[in-house]
Every structure is written in C-alpha cells, then in structure tokens.
C-alpha cells in the first residue's frame, strides 16, 4: 500500500535538496531566472526579507496569486512561508500544492506560544533554529528540515554562523556524553529527550540543516557549507543585486565547490555591489527576527 506524508518521504524530499541553493522569489520571472541558474527550489514570497524589514507592519503569507504564478512557472519544488503557529495559512498553502512550507520567523508570528503541529500535515515543513534545543523541539513537532535563523534581510552572515556553529557543537557535545547525562542536557536545552537519544545514536541530526539568514555573497554560501550546512537559502541577496542571474549562478557554483577557492575568486569577480547590509548590533531586540519562535 502506498503511504503519503511519512517521515521518510518528508525528510527524503529535503535530502534531495542537499548541496543546493534555495532562492527567494516574488514573481514568475524571478522564479524562472532562479531555475535557469540552477536553484534546487524557490521560495515564493510577496516581499523578500529586506523589504519586509523596510516595510514594517504585519508580514503575512504571500498572496496565493503569487504562489500560484510561481507554481506554474517552474518545474523545481516551490516552497512558501506561513506565519509561526498559523494553522490556516499552512493548510491553504498545502491545499495549493506547495512542496514545502517554511514556518518562518520572517513573517509576524500568529501564535506567541505554540508552533504548528507539523506531524498533522502531509506537506513537509522547514523551521529555523539557533541551537540544538530549538532544533530538537521543531523536530519533535514534525519539522522535516531545519535551517539556521540567521538574521534575515540584513546581508550579514554573523548570526547564521553563530547558529550553525552552536547546533554543531551541541551535537558534538551530546555525542560525547555519557547516557546518564542526556536527560539533564535535555532539560537545560528544553529539548525532547527522545529526539536527543536518536541524535546521539546516529551521531547526527535526523534531518538536514541548511544555512539561512544573511547570505549575501558566494563566499558567504561557501563559508556556511564549510561549517557543515547541507545547503543554502538565499533571500534578499540575489534579486537585490545588480545582476541577479550572474549572482545566482555564482552562489550555486560556490555552494557546490565550496572548497575550491580559486573558483570562488573567479565567481566573485565583477558581481557588482552586494546588498548594503546591516550591523546586527544596530538592530533593537524587537527588530531581530531571530528572537521570534519558542
């Protein structure tokens, strides 16, 4: 008997994206450029994070017209964002045939206490995390893919680096622990004990962990891969640059060949000005998207 929506099917979909770049797009034209540049998926949005940041106000799920337009424009998978805890936005996106939903802190949360029970859905989910506790909670809720939160729309890689390093070092710590110590570690992290046991048994997260939030250059993408990311989300960077197609291709190649520094040097030539970027310290706590989610 055929079974849909299983862990294997949901997580497997993310495994197929490994080593690839997922690009934010706001219309069909951008989606096509992304596909032609070698993106493994696109994220259909109404506004890229830097514009969400500039616009202020409440950021919601994209207009379904945009999502539909993107679904019809490309043959690669299409992802879309729903607000944290917004069951109906997620159901709407699922009903439209979106391939993956990002329960995303880039949008204004709909629920300040609870994330979605993602096990209830057939469509798989990706969620952001800053540390192993957050990662394990999301896995516990049924997320089939993780990404760093970074600090979206800033063009500043520092937070994504922090989050990737934190998760990796906590996984290493867990792996070297005596079994007697795991429950207390679970308590400290606020992580489900069973998820930690599973990670400790296999030595790694049970789902892929991509880099996201602040990737602005090919070198940034390669850096995240080198730090152990399974792939890269690029938000505002591509279509805010002077030559999106060239920029997108350069990010894709740098992600594949992240240790080929001569190649990355070539790729980085003449890309024009990357997005200006924001110093994280200049963002007041309420303007930090990474603080959203619990």
């Amino acid at each position, binding site marked *: 008997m055929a079974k849909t929506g299983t862990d294997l099917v949901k997580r497997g979909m993310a495994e197929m994206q*490994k080593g690839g770049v997922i690009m934010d797009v706001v219309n069909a034209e951008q989606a096509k450029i992304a596909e032609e540049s070698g993106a493994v998926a696109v994220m259909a949005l109404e506004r890229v994070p830097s514009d969400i940041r500039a616009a202020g106000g409440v950021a919601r799920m994209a207009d379904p017209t945009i999502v539909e337009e993107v679904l019809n424009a490309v043959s690669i998978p299409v992802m879309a964002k729903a607000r944290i805890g917004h069951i109906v936005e997620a159901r709407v996106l699922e009903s439209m045939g*979106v391939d993956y939903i990002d329960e995303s802190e880039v949008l204004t949360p709909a629920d300040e206490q609870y994330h979605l029970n993602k096990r209830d859905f057939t*469509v798989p989910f990706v969620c952001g995390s800053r540390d192993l506790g957050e990662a394990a909670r999301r896995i516990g809720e049924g997320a089939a893919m993780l990404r760093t939160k970074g600090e979206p729309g800033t063009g500043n890689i520092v937070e994504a680096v922090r989050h990737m390093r934190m998760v990796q070092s906590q996984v290493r710590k867990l792996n070297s622990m005596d079994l007697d110590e795991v429950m207390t570690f679970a308590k400290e992290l606020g992580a489900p004990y069973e998820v930690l046991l599973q990670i400790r048994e296999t030595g790694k997260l049970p789902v892929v962990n991509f880099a996201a939030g602040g990737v602005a250059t090919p070198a940034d993408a390669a850096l995240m891969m080198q730090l152990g990311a399974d792939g890269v989300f690029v938000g505002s960077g591509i279509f805010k640059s002077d030559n999106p197609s060239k920029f997108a291709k350069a990010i894709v190649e740098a992600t594949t060949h992240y240790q080929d520094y001569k190649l990355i040097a070539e790729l980085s030539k003449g890309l024009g000005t990357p997005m200006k970027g924001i110093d994280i310290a200049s963002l007041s706590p309420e303007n930090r998207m990474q603080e959203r989610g619990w």
Partner: protein
Amino acid sequence: MKIGVLALQGAVAEHARTVEAVGAKAVLVKRVEQLADLDGLILPGGESTAIRRLIDRYDFLEPLRAFGESGKPIFGTCAGMILLAKRIHNQESSHLGLMDVTVERNAFGRQVDSFEADLAIKDVAEDFPAVFIRAPYILEAGDGVEILSEDTGRIVAARDRHYLATAFHPELTEDTRLMEYFLKMAEDAAGKAVHR
C-alpha cells in the same frame, strides 16, 4: 570495485554509504578527471535541472556519455533516471540520452503526492521498500529494455544493457539489495573488459 557518485548536488552521501556497505569503494565525483578509473557510476537523486546546469558548467556532458558508451555501468535514481533517458515527455531535448526510455518528470504529482510502497523488483527483491519523491516514471521503454518493476501499472525500475534506473530512492533506506545488483553489473562489465 570503485563506484563513483556524481557529487554535484543531491543525495550523494547516502549513495556513497550504500556503496561502502556492499563492500565497494565509493568516490565522490566532482571533477571530470575522476571518471577515469571507475568501474561504475551512480547518478543520484536531486534536482535534475540543477544537476544539469552544473554538468554543463563543468563540461561533464560528453565525458559522462563517453563513460556510458565505453560499456561501464551507470545507475540513475530519480533525477538520475531523468538524466539517463533518451527522451523526456514534453521536452524537446534530453540530457545524457543513453537509456532507451521516455520519462515523464514529476509524474506522480507534487510533494504531497510523494509516497512509500513495497515493490517487487525482478531479480532483486519481492518486497523492496521504495521511496518516491516528486518522482518521474517511464512512459515508454524501447524493445531492448528490461522492465524490472512497476507500481500500479507504471514502470518505475528498468535496465537497458549496462544502464539501470529507478524512479524511487533506494539510497534513503537501509536496503542494499539494489546496490548489490548494480555492483554485480559493474563486476560483470569489468570481467568482460579483461577478456576483450
């Protein structure tokens, strides 16, 4: 036996792990020159359009064709099956065009239609756990193509001479029987090469 896994994008590590599990040496192929001393090659699951861009960018297309035409076995899973096919439904051109089949991309639907099923695969298993993810299938197979498995009437595993393709992802499970089958193909091909 040395089996390469084309490592441009996709589920590369899983295939490499399965290759090692059946006792062969796995090589992650990122450069054309790495093809030279392989006994067989795996084209992994991933996004076929993305993998094709990288194949073109690094001039892999002709070397991969030549690898197949020299008689060395190639095993394509999902996106790999699309890369191997001679014809792609509703598309004017194909990729490597080595295997005499017509495939349809995303033929089972979108991700919400992705599924698991147990399959009978000729000469391999009666109950192989198959994971289909936005999977293609084979619409038509040429006369010389051996159909190894069907799911609800759709061809999902086939062999054409030394080319093997599955619409599903054996690399996502612990089951190594298909890899053992492919390793045997590589050993047979290497044996023939010695006798020639």
